[in-house]
């Protein structure tokens, strides 16, 4: 059962020769063979993973198996972004993230399912069928990085890589009871990631523990000359923020007044007492109504989507535009409309102005608080089929993380409740100012280690 180990313990086990790559990969392959058919996590698998891994013992990640969302271009595997439009697309180049991952000794075990083009929060809109939530297969894993979150929750990889535009890392992590870290916009290169909304796309890790997420982020964060929006800031060692005292940390809890989220909010307040026990202060505070964030994000993101998907014009990738799914078509039409002459002032430009207000509002709160916390999603994972006829499904499920996403802020999801009947999880989003991943890692790690919600921490 080596596949159940955390990334940290897997690396340690390999380095200390407690077990071999062969043993580790045998367990991982077995879990994939047993579960992938039902869960539909992987679209493409790496047949040579073990051979590659065995050469990597001396590297920082020691050859551990990592699942990668299928919107990252990979030279060795086709890259579909879960759209049939790219069904046969085999990139001639490697995304910066996967290239750095490989250099650090991570092995791509497979490419995971997502909502087509990363449009969605369910992984139900994939051109390759829905992924199921490993915690409860009657439910959805969330999305768009649903495959990556499910791979972690089902122990089909040591960790995974996802990408978030607004919620796409944190929300599936929340629904699958895993840790998901969305870095600051510009911290991780977008080069080679099929663009969704270019102004907010942020690749990041989905992992079993906060420590695992920090280790994985270390592997691929940093400036990339191939991405003009990637920051030249120096990249800290994110593991330095683990096991540090949160004494004196000022925590603001936002969105407690949003009517839609009764239970998740109540449970959150209960759980946050842990921070007080650890010497932090916890205070409810008022942020701008998240419904504004839905409006801003919907308009900006659709606009950028309509532009980014225009290149799939049926000429170059072998498949014509009829293979776009309904969700992509809807977004392209809405985006085209909001950018049209006479309407762009009314929608796109107005949304950008409100976006500035949202950023100002969060900055204002950061004058008082070190971090802000809210539930990642209004509730538990929705049932399979829930997206049917729900064009705004994603926006409603992601409403609480959209403000921080459009503001480019770093955030982490950590589980804070498990329903004993359904085995489904609630997760909280810890948000910090730009470039302060250290704070969300510090707070997330402290919470995880002082509560028992993390299902991996206490095992093995």
């Amino acid at each position, binding site marked *: 059962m080596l596949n159940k180990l955390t990334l940290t313990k897997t690396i340690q086990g390999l380095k200390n020769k407690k077990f071999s790559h062969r043993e580790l990969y045998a367990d991982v392959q077995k879990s994939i063979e047993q579960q992938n058919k039902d869960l539909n996590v992987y679209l493409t698998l790496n047949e040579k993973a073990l051979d590659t891994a065995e050469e990597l013992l001396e590297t920082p990640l020691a050859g551990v198996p990592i699942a990668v969302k299928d*919107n*990252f*271009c990979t030279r060795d595997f086709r*890259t579909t*972004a879960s759209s049939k439009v*790219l069904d046969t*697309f085999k*990139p*001639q*180049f490697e*995304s910066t993230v996967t290239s750095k991952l490989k250099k650090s000794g991570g092995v791509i075990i497979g490419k995971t399912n997502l909502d087509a083009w990363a449009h969605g929060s369910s992984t139900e809109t994939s051109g390759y069928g829905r992924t199921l939530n490993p915690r409860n297969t009657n439910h959805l894993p969330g999305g768009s990085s649903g495959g990556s979150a499910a791979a972690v929750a089902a122990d089909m990889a040591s960790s995974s890589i996802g990408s978030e535009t607004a919620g796409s890392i944190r929300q599936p992590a929340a629904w699958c009871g895993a840790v998901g870290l969305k870095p600051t916009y510009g911290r991780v290169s*977008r*080069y*080679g*990631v*099929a*663009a969704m*909304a*270019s*102004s907010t796309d942020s690749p990041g890790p989905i992992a079993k523990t906060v420590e695992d997420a920090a280790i994985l982020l270390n592997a691929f964060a940093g400036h990339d*000359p*191939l*991405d*003009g*929006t990637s920051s030249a800031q120096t990249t800290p060692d994110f593991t330095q923020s683990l096991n540090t005292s949160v004494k004196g940390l000022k925590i603001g809890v936002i969105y407690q007044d949003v009517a839609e989220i009764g239970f998740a909010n109540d449970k959150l307040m209960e759980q946050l007492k842990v921070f007080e026990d650890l010497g932090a202060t916890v205070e409810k505070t008022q942020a701008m109504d998240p419904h504004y964030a839905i409006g801003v994000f919907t308009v900006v993101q659709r*606009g*950028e989507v*309509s*532009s980014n998907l*225009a*290149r799939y*014009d049926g*000429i*170059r990738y072998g498949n014509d535009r009829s293979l776009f799914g309904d969700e992509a078509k809807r977004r392209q039409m809405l985006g*085209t409309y909001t*950018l*049209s*002459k006479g309407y*762009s002032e009314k929608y*796109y430009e107005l949304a950008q102005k409100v976006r500035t207000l949202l950023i100002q509002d969060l900055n204002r709160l950061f004058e008082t608080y070190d971090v802000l916390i809210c539930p990642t999603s209004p509730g538990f994972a929705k049932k399979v089929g829930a997206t049917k006829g729900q064009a705004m499904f994603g926006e409603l499920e992601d409403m609480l993380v959209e403000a921080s996403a459009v503001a480019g802020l770093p955030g982490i999801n950590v589980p804070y409740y498990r329903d004993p009947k359904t085995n489904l999880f609630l997760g909280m989003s810890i948000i910090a100012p730009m470039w302060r991943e250290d704070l969300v890692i510090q707070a997330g790690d402290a919470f995880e280690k002082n509560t028992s919600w993390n299902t991996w921490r206490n095992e093995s």
Partner: protein
Amino acid sequence: MKLQEKYEVVIGMEVHAELKTDSKMFCGCKNDPFGAEKPNIYTCPVCLGMPGGLPVANKKAIAWTLKLGLATNCSLNKFSKFDRKHYFYPDLAKSYQISQYDIPFCYEGYIDTPSGKVGLTRIHLEEDTGKLQHKVINNKKVSLIDFNRGGVPLVEVVTEPDITSGKQAKEYGKKLRHILRFLDIANCDMEQGGMRLEANISLRKKGETELPNYKVEIKNINSFRFLEAAINYEVERQAEILEQGEVPVQETRGWNAVKSQTFSQRTKESAEDYRYFPDPDLPPFHFSDEYLKEIKDSVPELPESIAQRWVKEFDLPLAKAIDFSSVDSEKLLHWLESILRELHNKKLDLVLFINDYTNKKIVIPSRAQVKENTNPSEVVKLFEELHSTETIDEDILNKTIKEVLTNNTDAVEKYNSGQTQIIGFLMGQVMRTLGKKVDPQVIRKAIQVALES
């Protein structure tokens, strides 16, 4: 009344020029579309618009655009950005072109032409598209795309509707090309499309000041001669239509060089909607005063102002000064100026020199025309020798020549076998034997006579 006297011509121009940076505008691919041996060899995920390809702006191309702005009297925007311009065409890899919409790098400049000043609305920077080729392969009609040109930096210079004739349009185009070449930022190879001309032409009744309610665009013209001819043709065509009480159709027309006619290409029903928005992949620019000063300092003194200076410093006639300073290379111009300065210091005849130089009379013995790498003092010396008044007794000269020819039978044989450039060597021998400064042309002639007799 002649139609040309009844109507006034209103022309605005858009000129595209490819910058000759080493790499493309938004990726590291080589910028050499005309030198490429094969199609699509200078391409990468970025200029092919592949999923996840991201643009990173070429610093030099931006600096050069700003430089061009300053050289054409433009103001520069301290804040600027790139925007996406959406339209569908197979040669456009991303289905949008990265261009500049409402905040171009440069605005409100002008270029002087002999026929008057032409205002510049703006200069912006964008990326060029790929090139379509329609061919028949194995009896099948196919359309092929070459992306070597896709992503090459392209400046667009837009004028006010200030141009009033085909002649002035040509003057403007030539002047702009001269500036681009002199700044050493573009080759402007017209034939290959390195510089492309578009003119918007309409007519209004003399005395009217408002812009006409229509315009005809002539596109894809690759020579100044064709530009002038196309405009002249359009003026007559439009005047005839207006005379019949009708308004010419708003459309894009091309130039048929064989028939010497313009022809309709595309009718514009309504303004196109390009759905411009700021490119989120490219952070906007805030140019610092320091940076802009650096750009300003990099702009060389332009031929026009150098000519003005020559008039003052060297007392040259203006026309002569403008003519002589109209060279494409800054280095060459500085070389010419240092010669003029030395001539001026020696109180020699500058106009005579310019005439001699232009007529390629100043030659180095045994070599051809003097070049940029010739020491200016030597050029002056050659000029002085050319007009040296020292005379030589004809008998002595002929005697010396006879002597030299006898001693250099090899050279004479070579000359007779057609290698006439050997005469330079013989001239040198004669001059050395004489030990006198004699007009080389006199010696040359005498040797030629001796050789051919």
